[in-house]
């Protein structure tokens, strides 16, 4: 999408922003660091990607550029140098002046970051109004120009809308326009495209890149997904457990990743060109206070030797502008992008159809949203439903799962038609089709223990009870790689990936033949996504479970699914074996989806 032909000017001209020797600790436990030893340089017109899993401290570093930490954390040491002054040493009145005007922030999840009670037109100009910058007319004109720049309507009607009257992509671009309006010199973007579909994400990323380059803004792009920054960043810094593990030019990082953690992150990314056996990173990012001694990554590292546990590695130069924090950086050989590549699912495989959908039409009230959809799913096969937001993919899956009942046509399960809505289905049908929701933070009852959650379907369908059920819960938790130790926990003690495993174990407890997976990895880190997908694939192979897999991530489809249905505006526009559709897309729509998908291959 972008190129490096506009080489960013060297650290001259006093522009950009520099983080030096930053350490942020917990207020309650001063010896524990949230992030430590952070050195970063952002040059004008340059986008730097800051990548890491949840809990790596990347957002903490991002907001520290604005002299801000969340409650419970405090900046202990270090400098943030901006235009000859240290942001962290300035009095708060001056820091507040810098915020917004000079250093702007674009939030994660803009849907919750725009004030629901203030019209967007007012929110956009609010800061300038408070600071008395420009006149009312010039501010309004600025807001209109800004909205036009990000490709949004800018008439009065649009300015009078509230955040809930915009779509996700529109809200995100409003946030971008709002950040750009006071013409800041530095921009911090905190996962601004999480949850957007690929087309919208592509548009937002492109807009952002263009604005940064044309206005000479230095941008820090915080994300958990290396594939996203592969398209827009000039340089990439990979963070792990509060430290920079590797930093370098984009091309260096993607061609010669030298830290085992960077490689592990890259390995968990699915490719568009070829199916891969995805793998996650074993274990989870340690929280501040429970990080191991020595190299912080050594307990999850495939290349660790004894010395790694004892010696804390320094960030060492590997090449020009390329630094790595690993004792064995030179010893572990080259990284191979095609590692873990597997053949695509065989399109010739004999299919025993288990789910058969024909002429499906779905309405919400008087609005029809799905038209004449027909496809089938065979035993032990994964069929992906792909499309933009609003294409009807989740709606279809909800009809199959019995969660929505206003539909016409037939949904056949092993040749028998399924009832509309789960109440009209037999217990056996309900047991055999299980639904897994997108967001494991919301889909598990926070008052129940993991054991109660997983046991419930067994009791409901009379599969097991009492100690037998408990034993089976332990068995299932073992299968989803959680282990019986979590049985007594409530879900708030688990991470997102662990919660999603509980949700999968709950679905498996009913001994289903068909799993309906509704975007089940989109709320999770890429590394966690890898391990969830690996788990699902194993379940498919060993138990012969079929899956209807709803997603907007085409690369993921290539690795998990055998067949794909591309949906647009409620209709199937293209379908077939995954390799066929993705290698030779016939429809413009499919081609556009492919073109917008972030990729590293």
């Amino acid at each position, binding site marked *: 999408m972008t190129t490096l032909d506009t080489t960013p000017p060297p650290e001259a001209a006093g522009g950009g922003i520099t983080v030096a020797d930053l350490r942020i600790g917990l207020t309650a436990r001063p010896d524990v660091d949230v992030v430590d030893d952070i050195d970063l340089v952002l040059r004008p017109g340059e986008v730097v990607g800051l990548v890491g899993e949840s809990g790596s401290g990347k957002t903490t570093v991002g907001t520290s550029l604005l002299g801000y930490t969340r409650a419970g954390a405090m900046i202990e040491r270090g400098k943030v140098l901006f235009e000859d002054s240290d942001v962290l040493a300035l009095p708060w009145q001056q820091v507040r002046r810098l915020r917004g005007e000079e250093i702007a922030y674009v939030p994660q999840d803009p849907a919750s970051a725009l004030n629901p009670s203030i019209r967007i037109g007012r929110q956009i100009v609010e800061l300038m109004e408070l600071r008395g910058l420009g006149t009312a007319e010039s501010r309004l004109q600025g807001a209109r120009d800004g909205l036009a720049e990000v490709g949004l309507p800018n008439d009065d009607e649009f300015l009078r809308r509230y955040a809930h009257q915009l*779509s996700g992509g529109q809200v995100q671009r409003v946030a971008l326009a709002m950040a750009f309006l006071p013409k800041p010199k530095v921009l911090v973007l905190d996962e601004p495209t999480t949850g957007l579909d690929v087309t919208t994400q592509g548009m937002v990323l492109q807009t952002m890149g263009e604005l940064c380059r044309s206005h000479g803004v230095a941008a820090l792009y915080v994300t958990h997904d290396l594939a996203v920054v592969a398209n827009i960043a000039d340089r990439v810094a990979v963070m792990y457990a509060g430290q920079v593990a590797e930093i370098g030019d984009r091309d260096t990082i993607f061609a010669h990743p030298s830290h085992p953690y960077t490689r592990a992150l890259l390995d968990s990314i699915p490719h568009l060109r070829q199916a891969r056996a995805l793998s996650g990173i074993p274990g989870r990012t340690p929280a501040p206070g429970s990080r191991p001694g020595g190299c912080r990554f050594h307990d999850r590292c495939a290349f660790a030797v004894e010395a790694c546990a004892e010696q804390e590695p320094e960030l060492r130069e590997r090449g020009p502008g390329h630094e790595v924090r690993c004792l064995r950086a030179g010893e572990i050989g080259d990284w191979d992008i095609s590692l873990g590549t597997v053949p695509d699912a065989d399109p010739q495989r004999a299919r025993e159809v288990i789910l058969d959908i024909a002429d499906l039409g779905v309405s919400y009230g008087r609005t029809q949203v799905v038209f004449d959809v027909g496809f089938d799913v065979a035993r032990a096969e994964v069929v992906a439903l792909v499309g933009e937001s609003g294409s009807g993919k989740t709606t279809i899956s909800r009809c199959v799962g019995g969660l929505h009942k206003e539909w016409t046509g037939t949904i056949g399960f092993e040749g028998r038609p399924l009832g509309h809505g789960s109440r009209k289905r037999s217990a056996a049908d309900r047991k055999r089709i299980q639904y897994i929701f997108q967001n494991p933070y919301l889909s598990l009852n926070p008052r129940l223990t993991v054991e109660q959650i997983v046991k419930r379907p067994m009791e409901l369908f009379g599969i097991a009870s009492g100690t037998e059920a408990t034993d089976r819960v332990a068995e299932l938790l073992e299968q989803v790689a959680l282990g019986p130790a979590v049985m007594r926990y409530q879900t708030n003690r688990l991470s997102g990936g662990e919660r999603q495993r509980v949700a999968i174990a709950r679905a498996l407890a009913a001994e289903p033949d068909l799993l309906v997976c509704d975007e089940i990895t989109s709320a999770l880190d890429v590394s966690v996504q890898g391990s969830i997908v690996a788990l699902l694939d194993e379940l498919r192979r060993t138990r012969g479970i079929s899956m209807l897999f709803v997603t907007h991530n085409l690369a993921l489809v290539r690795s998990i699914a055998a067949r794909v249905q591309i949906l647009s505006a409620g209709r199937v526009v293209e379908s077939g074996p995954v390799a066929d559709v993705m290698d030779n897309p016939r429809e413009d729509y499919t081609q556009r989806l492919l073109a917008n998908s972030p990729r590293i291959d």
Partner: protein
Amino acid sequence: MTSAQGLGGAEQIELPERADAPGAVAPPRGRFGALAWALWLARRLGLAVLTLWLVSILVFVATAALGDPVRAILGRDYAANQARVDQLNGLLNADQPLVQRYLNWLGGLLTGDLGTSLTGLRPVSELIGSSVVNTLGLVLVSAVVMIPVSFGVAMLSANYRRRRPDTVIQTILLGLAGLPEFVVGILLVALLSTSVFHLLPAVTISSPTGHPWDQPRAMVLPVLTLVLAVSPYVARIVRATLLEVLDSDYVELARLKGIPEGVVMRKHALLNAIVPGIQVIALQLAYLAGGIVVVESVFNYPGIGKQLVDAVNAHDVPLVQALSMIIAAVYVVVNLVADLLSILFTPRARTAISS
């Protein structure tokens, strides 16, 4: 997915992409929006009338139809004083069938004829006119003081969350909430008008024609008592909501945008924390309108609470019925207003009605 509202379920909340339709609803304008509002209001008013009608049945059945009211009123005199029995029977139309009596009463209510008091033999409307006004006046003045006070306290408290000023405020509020109104009233009387200082009159002495606020000094203690009795609830609810809002992403963004803390609190936080406050204020106001008997007794304030107690003691059925209906009407109206305000303060709900 054109209808995210129709989806329900847990999985949609964190999904900006699904938070609304792809085209996103444009706010409708002009006649259509106004019509939608009118329909909504008409529906709510209809429901309010329905509620009041059901209440009227309950009130009538509870007061007039259970047992013989005349016997209850006269007690031992029932056997001895036949003339009085006949007079009361006439006043209550006790010889008519129940439904007929109810319909007559309801018709009277609707036309403004509240019947005749059994004790004073004067029209009920004449008897209660001034006390209704007195009570509403007291509630209104209390509300005008209470609302800004409780919001102010809540903002102060939220600003110092979990630090000492917050803890002190919360302890005081909890203490006040735990004290019955009359205790607060008596303590205030002891403090400000009898034992310690002699600043304010302890009781309201009003002429039958005038209103208590003709002597503003006499209003201070009743108002203060009510404010102290009610503000703790409101302040605690608003503080809790404010804390939640202050943790939200949009408040964080406002701070990161460089908005001064005062503006963050007033514009970004309070605006989104106001709705639970409105609801609890409405409940408290309605409670004050009907339930401040004790306070009115302590200060000898000529309001409906006191009158209601007197009427019940005297078995003055028409008076009890009229006062009960007035209190019910206040509840219904106050809650209707609160719902309307809540919707006006919640853009999502507001635009849902007009589209």
